[in-house]
């Protein structure tokens, strides 16, 4: 069995539907500042939780990760030239097998010479968990990974993503977000996981290199577009009515070598904006400016997932229906209902690689005159460890509706305890305008070195 996971994500089509680079600017404004404020509040709450058990023994450990990465694309540009340091403090309150509480705090600082914002400092996971009998209560900046499948997870809706590199490892794309989480371990193999997300944090949009050019509307004769205004962003306000929440109930089934099934309900907002535009008249007759608008749609997600072991195979599946507030598709400024499902199987080939095959289907309902959109893609991933230090991964993603896709071979080598080197290539193919063909220029090669301590 490999410890690595297939590393190729299916990007949501929404990012490329937004109006070019304009969207990127808006995503880093007031919402991000409010998220930082709420993260600090959550940390304070976590500290209070810890203080409640402070009479007990406290132990902690300081560690971290020092990493550097360099990449070059086929068009000669450099998509990444970064170095970063993540410090991690974790520990527990109490002694013995079952501590009273645990805590984690991660602080990241990085420099990327290829990024628009070269310096970056931010909080990663920073939360405390208190164990109260059968209940695990966590407060702070957390990552909640729902679902059973790999790479494509329709029910994994709690955390926003960092999609600046949209084909990065999906597990690395999750961004910690401030939330309150209660996990109840009930009897008979039932676990109920509840989350409350008080403040909305959007996903980081794909970098400029990954965004398609803005498509300006065609106007009747005598009318012309003379410019594009800065995008107007309308994030959900920080108020009680916009608190996001979700529940995932899991039942472990006493079948064979193990199986489980889960149901998910989530009420919140899409982490990626729906883009629209309107024309703003100028003082010159017939001359208009385009005003892009970015809105985050309120959604309700109903989903289910399962995993089951059948002999040498593990079968995993997920499905989710996302209800928007425009079920009839009348309003072009509101995203539509979507349905997504994924089914996959994995096994270890005797003496060979660990292989995963997944099929994913997504349907987006018709919208304001546009037809419904269907997509079907497959992910085939293989992982092989020729020796104790070397790892080889290959992941192939293919979108069958337009014939585009991506292939990513990765080579890893462990030089010493905690010191790992990585070389990977991402090859994107397809026709102009296709899902992945539009990104052909982003075909790239990356080298990385990481030291965990």
């Amino acid at each position, binding site marked *: *069995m*490999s*410890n690595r*996971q297939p590393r190729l994500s299916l990007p949501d089509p929404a990012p490329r539907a937004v109006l070019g680079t304009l969207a990127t600017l808006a995503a880093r404004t007031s919402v991000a500042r409010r998220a930082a404020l709420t993260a600090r509040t959550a940390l304070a709450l976590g500290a209070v939780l810890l203080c409640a058990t402070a009479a007990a023994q406290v132990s902690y450990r300081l*560690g*971290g*990760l020092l990493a550097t990465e360099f990449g070059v694309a086929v068009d000669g540009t450099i998509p990444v030239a970064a170095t970063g340091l993540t410090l991690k403090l974790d520990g527990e309150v109490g002694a013995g*097998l*079952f501590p009273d509480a*645990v805590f984690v705090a991660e602080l990241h600082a990085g420099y990327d010479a290829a990024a628009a914002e070269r310096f970056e400092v931010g909080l990663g996971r920073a939360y405390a968990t208190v164990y109260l009998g059968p209940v*695990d209560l966590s407060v702070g900046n957390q*990552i*909640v*990974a*729902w*679902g059973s499948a790999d790479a494509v997870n329709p029910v994994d809706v709690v955390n926003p993503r960092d999609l600046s590199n949209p084909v990065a490892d999906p*597990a*690395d794309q*999750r961004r910690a977000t401030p939330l309150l989480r209660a996990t109840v*371990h009930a009897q008979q193999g039932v*676990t109920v996981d509840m989350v409350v997300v008080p403040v909305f944090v959007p996903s980081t949009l794909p970098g400029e290199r990954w965004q398609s050019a803005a498509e300006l509307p065609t106007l009747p004769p005598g009318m012309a577009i003379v410019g594009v205004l800065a995008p107007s962003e309308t994030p959900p306000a920080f108020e009680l009515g916009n608190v996001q929440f979700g529940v995932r109930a899991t039942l*472990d089934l*006493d079948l*064979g*070598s*193990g*199986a*489980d099934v889960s149901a998910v309900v989530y009420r919140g907002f899409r982490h990626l904006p729906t883009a629209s535009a309107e024309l703003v008249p100028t003082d010159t007759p017939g001359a208009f400016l385009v005003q892009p608008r970015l809105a985050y749609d309120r959604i309700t997600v109903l989903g289910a997932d399962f*995993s*089951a*072991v*059948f*002999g*040498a*195979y*593990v079968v995993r599946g997920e499905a989710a229906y996302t209800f928007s507030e425009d079920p009839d598709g009348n309003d072009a400024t509101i995203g539509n209902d979507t349905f997504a499902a994924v089914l996959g199987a*994995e*096994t*270890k080939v*005797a003496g060979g690689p*660990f292989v995963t095959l997944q099929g994913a289907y997504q349907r987006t309902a018709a919208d304001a005159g546009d037809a419904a959109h269907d997509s079907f893609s497959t992910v085939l991933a293989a992982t092989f*460890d020729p*020796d*104790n*230090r070397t790892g080889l991964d290959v992941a192939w993603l293919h979108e069958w509706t337009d014939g585009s896709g991506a292939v990513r071979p990765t080579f890893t080598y*462990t030089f*010493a*305890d*905690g010191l*790992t080197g990585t070389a990977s290539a991402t090859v994107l193919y397809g026709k102009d305008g296709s899902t992945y063909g539009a990104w052909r220029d982003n075909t790239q090669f990356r080298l990385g070195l*990481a030291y*965990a*301590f």
Partner: protein
Amino acid sequence: MTGHQDHRRASARALIATAFALALAGAAFAQSYTTAKEVVDAMEAKPAPSTTIATMSMTITAASGHSLTRTMQVWSADEGRSQLIKFLEPADVRGSGFLSVEKASGDTETMIYLPALGRVRRVAGGQKQDAFFGSDFSYEEISSLSGDFGDDFETTLLETLPGPVYVLEGIAKPGSDGSYDRIVFQVPEATLLPQRVEFYRAGQLVKVLTISGTSAVGGYDLPSVIRMETVASGSYTTIDQSDFKVDEAIPADVFTERFLQR
């Protein structure tokens, strides 16, 4: 001469005397068993702790001589039928865990937890034959470190070496889903713990396991230094077990998904 030197000299004398006595005792051993079944029955009848907690240091050494080390905490109950392993070091695997629970039906439920993934994953039976976190041990072999090899094999006694040390051969029973079709293992009568196990597949020697150290804890002889060599690659992994605690009550909650990801 200092007190310290006195102490060292006295210790050396005691060690030599003990070794001499042990050698004599070994020579004086008469062979107690004449069939493989008797040996296997004796191994199975040997008292084993109901639970074990230990710290395991695993050093993986490539044919080139370069090595990697992993440290983990191991909880084992029901004679190894329930087992939980959590990684402590190095930092890049810290928090990873492995849970294996044999159910009343005989099926084994196996899961792993990887912090980077953020959730517990089920593992299929076939994957148990894969390398355990890059070592020369497979998941299946790690699970049976404290167990026996008798259930899946028809055993015969090949020979008895001085000691006495019994050399047994096990041929996989029809329908067995193990990784090997033949094993040859040496069992000293003094410990009734296998000191060397050769694993064969299709007539080829695949791996060699050697137990070169045991610890007497709570009245039990427990393997403390275990080495597994992969013949084809020349790599080997050595496991040093320490900080043994035996027969301590381990709550059933330990062998759960909840504890695995704590």
